[in-house]
């Protein structure tokens, strides 16, 4: 099937042909003794009318053929009357049934053509050998070619030069498993315009029909605008991140003045103040301190998301030991019991940030206890291999008040606190853990610990994990 056709010249030709056919058949029927199969051949003329422009034309042809058929009944020299009447009636029926089907067919064809031309995307039909057999008018805007320039050419014309060699193989693999699907899922695809420049595209593939020689319908969408919008959003997000970071840094300066001078007043004027006034001053200093912690956390979180990450193979034990080292005072002060399992994984990460993540989890575990009980903490390895997703990391278990089901997602968001204000902390610790994990394609999660408390999982995605056999 070709490009949507030019109508005018061929229509006159078709009418001529149809007319000649009808006359020829009529003459055979009435003049010769052959009987012309009781008029069935007129069906061919009706079928021919598929290429005439409208349903009315088909009805016209069918009407004329019907008249000729009935006239033949009367005038044909060879007919056996009874049988001829039955046969000719059947032929008449077949004629009109065919006309009906022809009109339906023409209608479907028209709908298809309008749909293909009406799409805001380029549509191509490519046969099994890779030749383009149909192109709609949008190929002009997407590829820069006129539709007729593409008919008969190989589809590789539209593939960037560096991928052209591979492309026939991709086509073969599609034919091996022809299923409606987007092309190159997850990859950035580029097509080659007539001018030689590349255009980013999204391509959908639909097999037409069945069997090895099938054609493929390709929808090609120019996604230049979409990519530009995506990039603009990315840029905006980066700028916002930088803004937040700069503001936080700059705010620390006046904050230093607030905190320090309040402290100085506290020191020098304590005796001259009433208890209540001393208390006010104490609150000023405390609030300034909290603000400073908050700003530090914002800067820390920003860096966790953006700073350059090194990577080296590290034993889990090393990271945990580093983190515990920084917390040795707290562990002692709170008389905490910390058990480190021996199934810690070996992973390839940035040492500073991985340690920071574990440090934050341990710091929380030390802070959150039920009542007066000393912290009871466990650190172990974590691995999960369900389906395609392999992840490996650490789990830190505490005996704190636990995390309610509604808060389980929320607590990893920036500055969300799921616990009372009596426990210090700005709520950025878990956000930092999440940021670090996600930079390695991993995730964080919390679940209840058997026997009370919570277990926090920080997992990194598996390509960073050394296989046992490589050791």
């Amino acid at each position: 099937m070709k490009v949507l056709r030019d109508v005018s010249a061929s229509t006159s030709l078709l009418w001529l042909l149809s007319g000649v056919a009808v006359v020829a058949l009529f003459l055979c029927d009435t003049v010769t003794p052959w009987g012309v199969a009781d008029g069935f051949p007129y069906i061919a003329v009706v079928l021919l009318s598929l290429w005439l422009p409208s349903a009315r034309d088909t009805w016209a042809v069918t009407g004329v053929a019907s008249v000729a058929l009935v006239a033949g009944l009367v005038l044909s020299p060879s007919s056996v009357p009874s049988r001829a009447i039955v046969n000719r009636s059947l032929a008449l029926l077949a004629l009109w049934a065919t006309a009906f089907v022809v009109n339906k067919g023409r209608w479907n064809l028209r709908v298809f053509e309008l749909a293909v031309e009406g799409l805001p995307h380029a549509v191509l039909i490519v046969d099994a050998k890779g030749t383009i057999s149909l192109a709609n008018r949008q190929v002009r805007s997407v590829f820069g070619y006129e539709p007729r320039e593409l008919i008969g050419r190989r589809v590789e014309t539209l593939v960037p030069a560096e991928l052209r060699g591979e492309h026939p193989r991709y086509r073969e693999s599609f034919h091996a498993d022809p299923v409606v699907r987007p092309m190159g899922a997850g990859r950035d695809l580029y097509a080659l315009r007539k001018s030689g420049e590349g255009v980013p595209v999204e391509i959908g593939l639909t097999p037409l029909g069945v069997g090895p020689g099938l054609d493929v319908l390709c929808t090609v969408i120019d996604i230049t605008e979409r990519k530009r919008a995506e990039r603009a959003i990315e840029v905006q997000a980066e700028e916002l991140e930088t803004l937040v970071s700069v503001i936080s840094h700059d705010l620390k300066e006046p904050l230093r003045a607030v905190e320090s001078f309040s402290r100085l007043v506290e020191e020098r004027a304590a005796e001259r103040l009433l208890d209540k006034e001393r208390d006010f001053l104490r609150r000023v200093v405390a609030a300034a301190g909290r603000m400073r912690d908050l700003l530090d956390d914002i800067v820390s979180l920003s860096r966790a998301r953006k700073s350059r990450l090194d990577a080296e193979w590290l034993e889990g034990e090393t990271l945990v030991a580093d983190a515990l080292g920084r917390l040795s005072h707290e562990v002692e002060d709170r008389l905490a019991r910390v058990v480190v399992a021996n199934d810690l994984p070996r992973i390839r990460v940035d040492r500073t940030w991985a340690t920071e993540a574990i440090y934050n989890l341990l710091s929380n575990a030390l802070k959150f206890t039920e009542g007066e009980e000393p912290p009871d903490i466990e650190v172990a390895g974590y691995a999960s291999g369900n389906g395609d997703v392999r992840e490996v990391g650490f789990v830190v278990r505490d005996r704190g008040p636990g995390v309610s089901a509604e808060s389980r997602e929320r607590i990893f968001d920036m500055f969300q606190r799921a616990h009372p204000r009596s426990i210090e902390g700005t709520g950025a610790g878990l956000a930092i853990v999440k940021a670090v994990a996600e930079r390695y394609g991993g995730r964080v999660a919390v679940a209840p610990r058997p026997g009370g408390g919570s277990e926090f999982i920080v997992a990194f995605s598996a390509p960073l994990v050394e296989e046992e056999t490589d050791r």
Partner: protein
Amino acid sequence: MSNGGRIDILLAEDNEDDVLLIEEAFAGLERARFVGVVNDGRSALAFLRQSGAYRNAARPHFVILDIKMPGMTGLEVLREIKREPSLRQLPVAILTTSNREEDVSESFAEGACSYICKPASLDAFRELARCFERYWTETSRLPGDES
């Protein structure tokens, strides 16, 4: 090993609040004191050269510079100091809010002997002053100290 000497310091800092805090932090020290406080780079150089309004300025043993100052930046002052034969041996420490890697490298490249980020709290500032005094009066010798 202790030189038991005193060190007189020139401070160049444009932020009035920080000047006050730094003076407060160093106030409790016995062997380190400020003999001059200026608010911009040109004044710092004039002070060191004992020129113009600073004709009778004391000669400091140590210079503490902020980076961000109006007119000449701390790094430009540092460069000038290290260029002048009579001032070259002055130890210069950068005391600043900036934590940027580039500023640290540039400071040391220009000849700073120390780079300190301004601490956030008064207590930390005082601790900083104490450490500073101990290091530069006990641990390290300085040119022209009285020992």
